[in-house]
């Protein structure tokens, strides 16, 4: 389905949609892929209705991953893109995983030795006065810490 021939290396003319070294874009049924994406959307919406938390999480984020993959592959043509592009995208994503992995042990903690984080919810508009914090805190929040 996908072409592996390289177009001749000439400069880009103003009217052409091809650049040097471009493989010809494959003939895909974009509407069909859109249909699948919509069906997946329905799945992710139905998931929470079943009431089981882990099912909901799997459908929600699993579907998101699949949809993102499909958009990247089919719409952005990442599957026929040069390897260097895959590499730079992967490095960016890996960096975000590193960011989470290194920060979470510190920032995700809800409490430590002698301190506990406030839930910090206020229903109405408040100004940034720190001493007003916690006024509207619901009592059960005080018991919550790190899961």
């Amino acid at each position: 389905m996908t072409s592996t021939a390289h177009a001749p290396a000439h400069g880009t003319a103003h009217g052409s949609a091809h650049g040097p070294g471009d493989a010809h874009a494959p003939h895909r049924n974009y509407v069909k892929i859109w249909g699948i994406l919509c069906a997946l959307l329905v799945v992710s919406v139905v998931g929470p209705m079943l009431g089981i938390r882990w099912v909901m999480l799997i459908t929600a984020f699993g579907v998101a991953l699949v949809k993102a993959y499909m958009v990247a592959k089919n719409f952005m043509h990442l599957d026929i893109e040069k390897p260097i592009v895959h590499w730079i995208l992967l490095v960016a994503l890996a960096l975000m995983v590193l960011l989470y992995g290194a920060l979470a042990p510190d920032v995700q903690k809800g409490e430590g030795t002698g301190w506990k984080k406030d839930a910090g919810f206020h229903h109405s508009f408040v100004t940034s006065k720190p001493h007003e914090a916690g006024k509207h805190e619901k009592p059960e929040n005080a018991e919550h810490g790190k899961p």
Partner: protein
Amino acid sequence: MSVKTIATQRASMNIPTGRLAVWWVLVSEIVIFGGVLVSYLMHRLGHPEWGEQAAYTNMWIGATNTFVLLTSSLSAVLAHQAAEKGDGPKAARLLYLTVLGGLTFLVIKSFEWTHEIREGFVLQSGGFWSYYYTAAGLHAFHVMAGMGVILWVANDAKKNQELHRVENVGIYWHFVDIVWIFLFPLLYIAK
């Protein structure tokens, strides 16, 4: 406007420079959105009680907006297909549809936010809402910027000029779509 430099037309890596540049833009955007979303994720997981606030977001509106963006991605890639065939006017029409999708997204969002603000959920209402408005707001800003660039590209495309830019702007738009694909479960489903 100005003559293309020779540099712009070379391709030592065998990728057209415009497309290579868009991918680099996406790399920088991944780390920007990544920064917001990682911060949000850490706080959301560290504050399970935020789920009580998250319950107030409207999943149906979120799902509708997801559908709108998916459809606008479809028109963007069909525009690319038209540009590949050299049909500039058709590509431009499809790009205008994409912009319309973006506009629809923003209109729906403004109704959604107006309602939420009226209910008392504002940016300052607490951790969840601060992240909700900031993340979705940053995304909406990128939608608007994208719409602007798409209009500029479509303007050239309808005269059969710079057709290679249709693909490049599409890649950016698909990225904006993918960010929303993840925002949707993060902000609307995971409660």
